[in-house]
């Protein structure tokens, strides 16, 4: 395998593996938020906002993976 192939595989793995954890996390957050909304529909507005903020924090990890992937893929280091 030449260096270019290794680089592309590394870039794919960087984002691919980084997406697993946030995927699970976002699923958990959404499920918790939906349960809470089901129990307490009046609080749905605040819950939605809080849910999005939570999702964003989980998603940040995937974004870091994406950044690393971009850095590798575009030969930044």
């Amino acid at each position, binding site marked *: 395998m030449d260096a270019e192939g290794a680089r592309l595989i590394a870039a794919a793995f960087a984002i691919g593996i980084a997406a697993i954890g946030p995927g699970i996390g976002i699923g958990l957050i959404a499920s918790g938020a939906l349960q809470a909304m089901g129990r307490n529909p009046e609080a749905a507005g605040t819950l939605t906002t809080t849910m999005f903020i939570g999702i*964003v924090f989980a998603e940040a990890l995937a974004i870091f993976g994406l950044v690393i992937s*971009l850095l590798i893929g575009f030969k930044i280091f």
Partner: protein
Amino acid sequence: MLKNPKLWIAIIALFAVGVVIKLFFPFTTQAVRASVAVAPEVIFELGSFPVTPTILTMVLVFILLVAFAFFSTRKMELVPSGMQNVMETIIEQLIGLFESIAGPMWAKFFSITATIFLLVLLSNYFGLIPGAGSIGFIKVGAETHTDVQNGQVCFQNETTHACDPSGIFVLGDAPSFVETYDLYTKAQIAKGIAEEPHAAFVPILRAPSSDINMPLALALISVFMTQVYGMQKQGLKYWTRFFSFGRLLKGDIAFGLIDVFVGIVELISEIFKIVSFTFRLFGNIFAGEVILLIMAFLFAILPLPFYGLEFFVAFIQAFVFAVLTAAFMRIATAEHGGGGHEGEAHH
């Protein structure tokens, strides 16, 4: 919805169009490679300032936003109508949103957070306008020969020659160019991807948020203003959040060291906020653009669901950027100074 026969006819017609296009215009996914560039391409230089598609789109966003602001508030009336109604509805919704997040301090943060929201929202949506990112020029480098003598813009290298009187190409419009590019990269593949592509597709419009400078600028402003508001509210005491040597100097070694460590963690997370703000917006919009392009070159109606997804993502990213800014500002202005990592844990 699925019982609606018209919808089925529309879907089947779209598929048919897709098949026809695929049969008669065999584009290749290689064309995508030409347009996906992290760094925006330069269209022309204004003085010494290089103008990129993202800058151009930003100017459009600016004009649109200011025009909307101007025309909607030109004559304010107690009983609103028309554009004033729209603007007031938007502002009222934003007030409700930020009031629920920033609490009673919302009025202080409102202009920054609302501006971030409107700017990011419009920037994201400009990238979703059909044609943005797919209509543009082919810019040729030094090694290709450009011929403008007989009123045509041409480019040429060892293998191909393509001309267009206008010099405007639609992405995928010039298969010969794509093949050239493909050959070129194949020739270079031993040395890696061509380091300096000599011909590149340059779209006229691109979502400003897909240029890393725009999210970075907003992130810098957001984090900087958070510090400013924190200091306005708490004075110099605000900095004990990051540099808390109080207990260490009093002689309480164990807790003092913990305080110092917490301060360092807080400082790092504060700096990292810039990174996460920047790459969250940039990553989402850029990835969305790439996905839409790839899907567009795979099959005709495939981008449709992704277009809907990107429409949603564009809004969510604007929402999240503004809401997070408001939340961080609230944490910074809250009375308890050195609160460790609780800011992120709370929200």
